[in-house]
């Protein structure tokens, strides 16, 4: 079912770089003082890759994600999506935040329609997707609920479904389940992996959980702070679909220890 409702829009070969970041710098100005937040970021993300941005709070993960999504402007350097320089938000990119930000005056169905409305898309056609998307995120039959009738986890599932409504090629997820309890988060992580795998979407996930990053990603971009920079671009080599069995492997432990070492966690 994932294949049907979230099928890829084009047939770009999987080895081509979809997101290309070169010599990217970002400086914020505050109270007349300049603060360098990102220094010399160079990255290539391929179509269908699952990438995690991992690093301590304040290292510029959200800033990098917003730059990729065209929500803020870079200082220097280049960000290209499918060979196009990013200037403004584009509809092939879907964003998801730590807060669900559902509109309380709209039902679940109306919230899901919102991105289509804003993009002036075909609403009647979009409505046909709602049922499938809701069952994809495990909330079948909740069309007519209002957000404040749903738990935090359910709201975040709706938020994920809303991000998927426009069937974007690229998902930019900023600690999407960070505010949820561990059980709900694990659950949603597996749903997300499932969706990503079956749909072939490119996912860039911001997280500060090392274990989450290792379990889910094809690649982990480990970042350092002051200013934000890349410590290591790691390939995580596990069979797909991932199961939590990998937690018991030697390789998993080595990845974990290596990242902890990089970030200077533990002793």
């Amino acid at each position, binding site marked *: 079912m994932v294949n049907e409702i979230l099928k890829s829009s084009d047939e770009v070969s999987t080895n081509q770089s979809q997101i290309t970041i070169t010599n990217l710098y970002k400086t914020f100005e505050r109270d007349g003082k300049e603060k360098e937040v990102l220094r010399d970021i160079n990255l290539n993300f391929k179509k269908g890759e699952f990438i995690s941005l991992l690093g301590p709070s304040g290292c510029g993960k959200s800033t990098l994600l917003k730059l990729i999504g065209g*929500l803020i402007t870079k200082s220097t350097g280049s960000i290209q999506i499918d060979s196009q320089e990013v200037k403004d938000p584009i509809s092939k990119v879907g*964003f998801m*935040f730590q807060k669900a930000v559902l*509109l309380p005056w709209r039902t679940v169905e109306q919230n899901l329609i919102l991105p289509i409305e*804003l993009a002036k898309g075909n609403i009647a056609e979009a409505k046909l997707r709602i049922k499938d998307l809701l069952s994809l995120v495990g909330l079948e039959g909740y069309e007519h609920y209002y957000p404040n*009738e749903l738990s935090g986890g359910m709201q975040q599932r709706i938020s994920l479904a809303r991000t998927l409504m426009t069937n974007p090629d690229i998902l930019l997820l900023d600690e999407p389940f960070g505010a949820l309890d561990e059980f709900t988060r694990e659950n949603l992580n597996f749903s997300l992996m499932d969706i990503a795998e079956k749909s072939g979407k490119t996912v860039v996930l911001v997280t500060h959980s090392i274990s989450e990053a290792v379990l889910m990603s094809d690649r982990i971009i480990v970042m350092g702070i002051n200013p934000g920079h890349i410590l290591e671009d790691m390939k995580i080599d596990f069979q797909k679909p991932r199961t939590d069995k990998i937690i018991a492997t030697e390789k998993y432990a080595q990845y974990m220890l290596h990242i902890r070492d990089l970030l200077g966690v533990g002793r």
Partner: protein
Amino acid sequence: MKAITTSEQEIKIPKPKIIRIEYLLSLLLLVFILVLWEVLSRFKIVHELILPGPMVVIGSMFELLAAPFFYSNLGVTLFETLAGFALGSIFSIVLALIVVSVPILYKVLNPFIIILQAVPKVALAPIFVTWFGFGLTAKIVMAIAICFFPTFINTVVGLKSVDEDSKLLFQSMVASKKDLFLKLSLPTALPYIFAGLKASLTFALIGAIVGEFMGADKGIGMLINTFNFQLEMDKVYALIIILSIIALLLYLFIEWLDKKIVFWTDNK
């Protein structure tokens, strides 16, 4: 474990009873006040010219409610109130929208807004009479002046209360400026706007009455003035009670509208 749940339930049960007792006490207090009032008046402890008894006042109230002249005067006052409220609300909401969407304008006008807000609007009544004469206009302008600020300030605050996350979300969904306003800012501001409207509707009635006190040939304010001069205090009290009931009805109406339109705020 089970003992805890039952004791929690036991605590919950008496709560509604306490509320009922409070209602009962309020009712008893009302009866006490009415009896005291009747006694003070009937035994001439207070002169009945100053304080006619509740029975007399209620009698006058029904007398007024049966008289055709009462309704023509009520109509005038209601018209002034509602016209002032409608115009004042439209002005304040439109101006708030303009001021919020043009940041420079907001900064320039802000000191003036703060000063104007501090002016006791009722003190402007004589000026309005000089400007607009003794007709309806002066009363409507008075109502506008007094009910402008609550809605204006609330609309500004409401429009500015849209959180960054929602704005980012709309931005990421490639929303137009128009959609950002209609589908995010305006609904976010609605609960604030209604809070302003609720306050300003009763203010508009005050404005109309004060306007009529300055001189008028029709209206409840004029009737109060006239009966006061003729020392028919029972009718003055009766009119004040009627006015209070009208204010209450207007308030209940707008609260009902608020609950209908801004349904999502008390869903929880």
